[in-house]
């Protein structure tokens, strides 16, 4: 009998989403345990003592697996089902390279571009965010998703971008892209969020908008405080 799978996550996190969509695409039944990250549970701190973050995957009674992209690779390898990463080693290397690019180079400029008060500082990050988007746009030529015709590893790795372009643009009133800019990326964001399996584990858009609107002031405070030290 299959061992139970639990995913410790939090509402609205693109990192948690990566793990969740991977489980769904692979057809793995799981229980989602939602954390309040301002009041972390003993369960989370016990299973991820080093990073203390979500997502965390619990498979049976094995010690936890942490870090969203590592969890995705684990799900791909430990369970039967459609492959989440490409099969060819070179294609796998490209997927990992671009996922790393998104993690290391994209997250910060996008986040700062959305939430900074200082217009001049924000402009610098908007410019950087747009340069990154141009690179990602070029990866979508002739393809519906980064992986091809169906969603895969790099699409989930980039899911935060879909959040930025959609929900967060609405919450902040700031669109990082003009109406005629990056058409492939904008189409990708729509296609990704409406894909059947992805949609099944995404909260309704209104809920996400409400969630981030509620946190808006707190996020702005934290981001601008951080920016003062820079």
């Amino acid at each position, binding site marked *: 009998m299959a061992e139970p799978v639990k995913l410790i996550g939090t509402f609205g996190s693109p990192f948690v989403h990566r793990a969740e969509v991977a489980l769904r695409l692979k057809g793995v039944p799981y229980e989602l345990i939602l954390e309040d990250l301002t009041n972390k549970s003993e369960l989370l701190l016990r299973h991820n003592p080093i990073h203390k973050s979500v997502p965390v995957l619990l498979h049976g009674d*094995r010690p936890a697996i942490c870090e969203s992209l590592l969890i995705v690779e*684990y799900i791909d390898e430990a369970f039967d089902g459609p492959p989440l990463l490409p099969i060819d080693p070179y294609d796998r290397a490209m997927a990992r390279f671009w996922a790393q690019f998104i993690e290391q180079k994209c997250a910060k400029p996008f986040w700062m571009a959305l939430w900074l008060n200082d217009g001049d500082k924000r402009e610098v990050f908007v410019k950087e965010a747009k340069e990154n988007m141009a690179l990602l746009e070029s990866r979508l030529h002739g393809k519906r998703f980064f992986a091809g015709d169906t969603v895969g590893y790099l699409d989930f790795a980039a899911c935060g971008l879909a959040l930025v372009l959609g929900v967060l643009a609405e919450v902040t009133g700031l669109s990082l892209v003009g109406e005629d800019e990056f058409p492939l990326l904008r189409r990708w964001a729509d296609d990704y969020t409406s894909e059947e399996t992805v949609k099944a584990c995404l909260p309704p858009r209104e809920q996400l908008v409400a969630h981030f609107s509620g946190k808006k002031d707190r996020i702005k405070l934290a981001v601008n405080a951080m920016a003062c030290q820079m």
Partner: protein
Amino acid sequence: MAEPVKLIGAVGSPFTHRAEAALRLKGVPYELVHEDLDNKSELLLRLNPLNKTVPVLLHGDRAICESLVIVQYVDEAFDGPPLLPTDPYDRATTARFWAHFMEHKCSMPFWMALWSGGERRKGFVEEARENLALLEEHLQVHGKRFLAGDAVGYPDLAGSYIPLMLDMFEELSGTSLMGDDEYPAMRRWVKEYNSDEAVKSCVTNKKQLAAYFRVKKDKYKMMVKAMLKQY
């Protein structure tokens, strides 16, 4: 017939070492193409336009960038001893988790402890030592020669900057990272890593690294000082 393999790398680059050691461990013949990072070649800039740095692996006409992406590629594209365990759980928890730790949590404080000075350095040294303690605990509990098993593998390559630099740490920074009787499992791991035949055979070896860093020491210290002034 096997497609030619070239590794574009630089002396003094611990990232190049990761890729080179992976090729050697896997038994893949390759040509090392030396890059002068102060005068980057057109080849490098064409093959790695995004980051403009080494290492870059060329397998036939395929270019792969980013040292840890290269290590995983080498493991998957070529036959030879596996660099990651075969069990999916061990791959995720020991190999990939500790490689991620070495790259994303351990690396910055280690290098900053090496090149920074004064009060700021104390903070980095403390953080580096906390990370060493976590690694020590893992090695002791896991009870293997290396981070994910009894042979050099992916997480060891990710953390290879530690065994490569540790001897020189005090000489270069003027401060010690660990006392002689501290972190015995880490010390053993460092020794095992440096004694591995494939690692020793790498062209980018410790002597060259030591010479390189002695020359570059002041430049790196200045760069870090300028960077920290902004924070």
